[in-house]
């Protein structure tokens, strides 16, 4: 199929424990075109590990195996370190959850951004201009100041926007965004989503949007995978998420408080051992 940018079939990720290998992702399959695919689930559901495995970032001693893992016609299952280097950042990039651990603490923001811009820019001046333009694009009010700042001088929300700016500078074909907006304010969150949306629509970028926020995913993505205990329990069109069939998805929706008011106490999620099978 020509439309598929990424094909994942039967992805399994396991970590060794004293009781043998624990599978945290158990047979996840999906294909991604040039669209916005959401992966939702609670912490521990395996959604982040799924995202990392696509970039070959399963932390050792963890092991990722799949029947198919193909990106733009290339089989990634046996990719060498050099193959990964040619893909990571340039063709596939990832925005991680926590800017505190993802930015270099001893390098100014500007230098880190210019490093990302260096490959596509012809001069330092151009790289600098690109970096500043991207900071502005992610709604940073004072790009000059942030450019010269170090990560510890930024708030979490600003750090996250810097991360997003850095990942978007090389104009990747596939962006894996792991809770990219969870640390952001709602109004900024919408702006960042708008940037991502524009990249998908205008440049045909593929986006995997990993989040625990059902409401956000249902309004932003085209298609949603709902994960529970390492499996995809449901795949739905985002617009139909409200009418999801799986009791887990329904339960997650029901336990959210609503501005317009709802039941008190909030309904809690009653887990069923069946779901994890």
């Amino acid at each position, binding site marked *: 199929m020509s439309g598929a940018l990424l094909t994942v079939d039967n992805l399994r990720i396991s970590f060794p424990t004293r009781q043998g290998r624990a599978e945290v992702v158990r047979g996840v399959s999906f294909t991604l075109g040039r669209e916005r695919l959401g992966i939702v689930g609670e912490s521990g559901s395996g959604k982040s590990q799924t995202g990392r495995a696509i970039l070959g970032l399963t932390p050792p001693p963890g092991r990722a195996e799949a029947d198919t893992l193909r990106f733009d016609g290339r089989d990634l299952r046996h990719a060498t370190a050099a193959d990964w280097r040619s893909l990571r950042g340039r063709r596939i990039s990832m925005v991680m959850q926590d800017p505190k651990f993802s930015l270099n603490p001893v390098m100014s923001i500007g230098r880190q951004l210019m490093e990302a811009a260096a490959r596509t820019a012809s001069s330092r001046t151009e790289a600098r201009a690109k970096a500043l333009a991207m900071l502005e694009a992610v709604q940073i009010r004072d790009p000059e100041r942030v450019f010269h700042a170090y990560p510890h001088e930024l708030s979490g929300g600003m750090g996250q926007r810097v991360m997003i700016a850095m990942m978007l500078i090389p104009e990747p074909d596939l962006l894996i965004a792991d809770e990219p907006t969870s640390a952001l304010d709602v109004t900024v969150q919408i702006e960042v989503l708008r940037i991502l949306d524009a990249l998908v629509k205008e440049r045909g970028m593929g986006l995997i949007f990993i989040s625990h926020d059902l409401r956000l995913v249902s309004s*932003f993505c085209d298609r949603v995978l709902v994960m529970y205990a390492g499996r995809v329990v449901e795949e739905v069109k985002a617009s139909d998420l409200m009418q999801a069939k799986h009791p887990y998805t329904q339960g997650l929706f029901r*336990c959210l408080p609503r501005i317009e008011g709802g039941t008190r106490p909030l309904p809690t999620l009653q887990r069923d051992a069946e779901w994890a099978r």
Partner: protein
Amino acid sequence: MGLIDVSGLSVTFIAAGRRVRAVRDVSFSVGRGESYGIVGESGSGKSTVLRALVGLAPVSGGQMTMDGAALQGARPAAFYRKVQMVFQDPYASLHPRHTVDRVLSEPLAIHGFTDRDARIARALDDVGLGQGFRFRYPHQLSGGQRQRVAIARAIILEPEVLLLDEPTSALDASIQAEVLNLLDRLRGERGLTYVLVSHDLAVVAHMCERLLVMQHGRAVEEMTRESLRAQAATQDYTRALLTASEGYRPA
């Protein structure tokens, strides 16, 4: 007059020669038994208001009173018997090398309680953890369980006021519902007064009768739960927040 009255509160931080006015001229009043919300985005000064109340922020202007008594300078121990705080991140706010038992014993020791054993047992039951958790370390607990420990630590002194700084924003939706229900139940049972800070309008609408919207250190507007539900915001900023919290809408 309310239980907590804040008028014209300003907080100024001086960092590297720069003055940062984190809170500017904020006033509000919280009645006894009320749940009052402060909503705003990061950097709006909402957490700083809470920290100023307990004496953890450099107040540069305005008055705060509780029960008619002025709050200034170092607070006496009796103040902390009445006012306790629950922080956002249960991963950071519990000592990693202290057991739950030790975490809960500390406030009791500071305030000279003698019946510590019974109080710890009761506090653990109150937050729905039970005795089995008493000698565990934080790393043996999930995020929701840790936040329950943090709440147990706050209520163990039987305070009148709980200051809640984003109590559920580090938690999964299903766990958030459980913790919000717990806070709701405790307030009903004990007649507690809450000041709850959150960036999530839906959480505040669920938990609080009245709320204050803050932006850039200033109070934007005060609303009741009813006016929030009716989307009857008078300020553009509040309207923007309300729209944004409905989710993404393509431009």
